[in-house]
C-alpha cells in the first residue's frame, strides 16, 4: 500500500534532481528546512489534542448504548436470542448491503483533534465518532485529560465539535483559504502514536476548492491516526483539518488511504457554522432537488426533472426551466450550478432565477435547501460511516 503512494517528497526529490542541472536546489535544502519545520511543529503542538473513545459499536443489533457521561449501561443488555430479522426495505435510497462487510469491524483507535476556542470547544473528525462512542476523552498536552461532551457535526465537511470543561486553552491561528497556494508546504500533524510530541507527515497543497469548495487537497499522509488533526503551514498556522472525505460524499477509507490524496476541511467557513454546531445541530449537505440535463451545455443549467418531495418542486421549479442565476451569480452551465449548490448546507436559503420555456424570467425563492437524502442515511447508525478501515474481527478471549 505504501509502495503505491506517490509521495510529494518523491516529486520534490525528482524536482531537486532536475533543478540541480541548473545549479538550483538540492536535497540539502531539506537540511535548511528542518529547523523551520520543527519550529512549526513546536508552535502547533499545544493545540493538537488526543481523542480517545470508549464504547460504541457498529450497531448490528440496533441496541442503545449508555448515555454520555451517565455511567455504565443500565440495565445489563441481554444478548440477542437470535439474529434480528432483516429490516424491510422501506427506502429505496438505502444502501442495499452493509458498507462494512460481515466478519469485519470498523477500525477504532486513538485519533486527533484541534482546540478551536480557548473556552473548550474542540474540533474533531467525524471519524473519531464513527462508532457512536459512549465516552469521548480529550487529552490536551500539559493540561490533562477531560471528558468531552459531543455537540454538533457538519457531515458535509466531516467534522464534529466536542466541548471540554477547560479554560485558557491554547488556540491556533487559522489561515484563510485565499491565502493558501497550491504547492506550498502542508504538514499533517497527529497525536496518536508518538510520545514526544505530535507526529508529522510532509506534503504540499495539491489543489484548492475541492469537493465544491469544502476542502483543500493535500498529499501529506492522512489516515485514522491524524484525522481531525491540523494541516499546518511553515509557520505552524492551520490551513485545514484532515478529514476522511471523498468526491462521492460517501465514505472514504482504505481505498483513499495512502494514495497521496488527502482532504483538509478549510476553516474559513466553519466560523459561521460554529454557533449552529455548538447548539448540537447536525449539518448536512444541502439539497435543492433538481436533475439537470446533461445535453444542455449552457448558458445556464437546464432542469430535466424535479423529484416530488424536493424543495425545487415545491417552489414551482419545473422540467425545462433554465436556471440563470443562483442568488446573484450567473450560472454558466451544469457543473457550475453543482459547485454553487454543492457547498451549501441543508437549511441554507437560495434564490433561483429561471427562464421558463416560454421565455419568461422568474425569480423563485428564497427557498430553503433540504438535507441531502444520502446524508440523512449517513446519520442512520450503521448504515454509512464517514470512513471505513475494516479490521478483521478477532474472536473474544477471556
Amino acid at each position, binding site marked *: 500500500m505504501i509502495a503505491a503512494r506517490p509521495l510529494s517528497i518523491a516529486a520534490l526529490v525528482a524536482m531537486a534532481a532536475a533543478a540541480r542541472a541548473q545549479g538550483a536546489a538540492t536535497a540539502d535544502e531539506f537540511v535548511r528546512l528542518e529547523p523551520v519545520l520543527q519550529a512549526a511543529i513546536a508552535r502547533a503542538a499545544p493545540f493538537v489534542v488526543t481523542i480517545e473513545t470508549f464504547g460504541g459499536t457498529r450497531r448490528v443489533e440496533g441496541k442503545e448504548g449508555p448515555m454520555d457521561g451517565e455511567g455504565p449501561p443500565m440495565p445489563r443488555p441481554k444478548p440477542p436470542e437470535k439474529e434480528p430479522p432483516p429490516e424491510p426495505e422501506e427506502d429505496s435510497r438505502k444502501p442495499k448491503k452493509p458498507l462494512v462487510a460481515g466478519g469485519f469491524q470498523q477500525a477504532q483507535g486513538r485519533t486527533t483533534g484541534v482546540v478551536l476556542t480557548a473556552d473548550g470547544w474542540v474540533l474533531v473528525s467525524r471519524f473519531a465518532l464513527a462508532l457512536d462512542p459512549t465516552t469521548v476523552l480529550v487529552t490536551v498536552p500539559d493540561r*490533562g485529560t477531560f471528558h468531552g461532551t459531543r455537540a454538533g457535526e457538519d457531515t458535509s465537511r466531516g467534522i464534529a465539535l466536542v466541548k471540554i470543561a477547560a479554560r485558557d486553552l491554547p488556540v491556533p491561528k487559522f489561515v484563510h483559504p485565499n491565502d493558501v497556494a497550491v504547492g506550498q508546504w502542508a504538514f499533517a500533524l497527529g497525536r496518536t502514536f508518538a510520545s514526544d510530541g505530535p507526529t508529522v507527515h510532509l506534503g504540499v497543497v495539491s489543489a484548492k476548492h475541492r469537493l465544491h469548495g469544502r476542502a483543500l487537497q493535500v498529499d501529506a499522509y492522512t489516515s485514522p491516526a491524524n484525522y481531525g488533526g491540523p494541516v499546518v503551514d511553515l509557520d505552524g498556522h492551520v490551513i485545514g483539518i484532515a478529514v476522511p472525505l471523498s468526491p462521492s460524499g460517501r465514505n472514504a477509507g482504505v481505498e483513499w488511504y495512502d494514495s497521496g490524496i488527502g482532504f483538509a476541511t478549510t476553516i474559513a467557513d466553519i466560523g459561521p457554522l460554529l454557533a449552529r454546531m455548538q447548539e448540537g445541530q447536525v449539518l448536512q449537505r444541502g439539497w435543492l432537488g433538481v436533475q439537470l440535463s446533461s445535453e444542455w451545455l449552457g448558458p445556464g443549467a437546464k432542469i430535466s426533472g424535479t423529484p416530488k418531495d424536493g424543495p425545487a418542486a415545491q417552489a414551482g421549479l419545473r422540467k425545462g426551466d433554465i436556471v440563470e442565476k443562483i442568488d446573484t451569480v450567473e450560472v454558466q452551465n451544469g457543473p457550475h450550478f453543482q459547485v454553487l449548490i454543492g457547498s451549501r448546507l441543508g437549511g441554507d436559503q437560495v434564490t433561483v432565477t429561471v427562464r421558463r420555456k416560454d421565455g419568461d424570467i422568474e425569480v423563485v425563492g428564497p427557498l430553503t435547501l433540504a438535507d441531502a437524502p444520502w446524508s440523512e442515511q449517513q446519520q442512520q447508525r450503521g448504515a454509512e460511516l464517514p470512513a471505513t478501515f475494516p479490521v478483521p474481527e478477532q474472536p473474544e478471549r477471556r
Partner: protein
Amino acid sequence: MKTTIAALLLGVALPAQTVDFGKAYSFAERAPRTQTERAIDALLPSIVKIHGASGLQTISAFASGVLVTAQGHVLTIDQIMLQPGRTRVVLYDGSVHEAQLLPPDDRLGVRLLKIDPKLVTAELRPLWPAAPTPFRTGQFVVSLGNCFRLAEFSEKVSATFGVVVGRADTALRYRMTNVAYDGDVILTDACNNPGHQGGGLFALDGRWLGLNMKLLESKETNTMLSAAIPVADLLPYLDEQVHGKPRPSPVAKTEPAWFGVQLFEQAGRQSPPAYVERVVAGSPAATLGLRNDDLIVRFDEFSIRTCREYRDVLARFRPGQRIKVMWKRGTEVMNGEVDLVAEPRR
C-alpha cells in the same frame, strides 16, 4: 517512497554509459556533490543484501543488512527465513557469500550474521553504531535497503527519503501487531517496503539512527507505518555478540499483579469498556477510592478501551509496581497512583 535517489542518479547516468558485465556493473558515476549525496555514497558500501531460504506466505526470504565490523558481522532483522547453510549475503561489490547465523535477540527481533573476515575489503566500510544518536520529529532522513529485492548483483540498494514522524513508545503502540520489540521506535515516512527491513535509517549527514523494522501494522486502524529500532538499543546485543560483554538478563517472571476490581462484562460479545462492577475491599482499587460504575481508562500511559485491554495491560505490570490510574466517574476524569499487589490467597 518508491522513487529513490540512487535510482535517479543511475537513471541519469545510464544512457550515456557502456555497461561492463565484468566484475560488476560499471557506471562512470559523477561524484556526489551535496551533503546528502556524499552521505549516501559513503553509506552504501556498508549495506548488504540478504537472501534466505524460500519465503513462506507472509515471511519474505530477502532483507537487507548492515555490515557492522571488519570481522564480518552483519546485522539484520530476524523476521525473514534464515536457515543455516542457506543464508547468503551479497556485498556491495556484488559478490555472494554464505553467512553463518549467530544467536538472535528475540526481544529486539534482530540477528547477527557472520561472513569470512577476509571478505571485508577496504572498499567495504563497517559501520558500528556510534554513541546514541538523537533524533527529532521532523528531522529529514534517508533509509537504505533492498526494497522488493530490486537491487541485484552489485546494483545499489534503494535510498528512500522522508522525515521522522515521531517516537512511539510501547504504551502507544502496544496494539500494533507483528513486532517482537518492546521499546521506543522511530516512526518515519521513508518507506520500509519488504526487503528494506534490516537496512539502515540515517540522518542526512550520514549518522546512523536506526535499523529498519518490518512495517508496523496498527491493529486498531488497519494502517501501516514504517519504523526503525534506535541504534542505541542495538548496542547491548552487538557488544555481547561481538565483544563478549555480558548484559543483564531480563527480569524473571513473577506472579501477576492484582488491582482488585471485577468488570462489567459479558462473554461472547465484543469486549465492552472497562466499567467497574465490584471493588474488592482492601485492594489497590479500593485504596484509590474506585467505585462501582467507574470507567477505567488508563494505566500509566496505556489507554484501556475495553475489558480485554484492561487484562492485557494489567498483565504488563508486576506486584509492587506503582502505577498511575485514570478513571472516569460521570463526566469527571479522576487520577490516582497506587502500588499494585499480588492477588491475596484465599
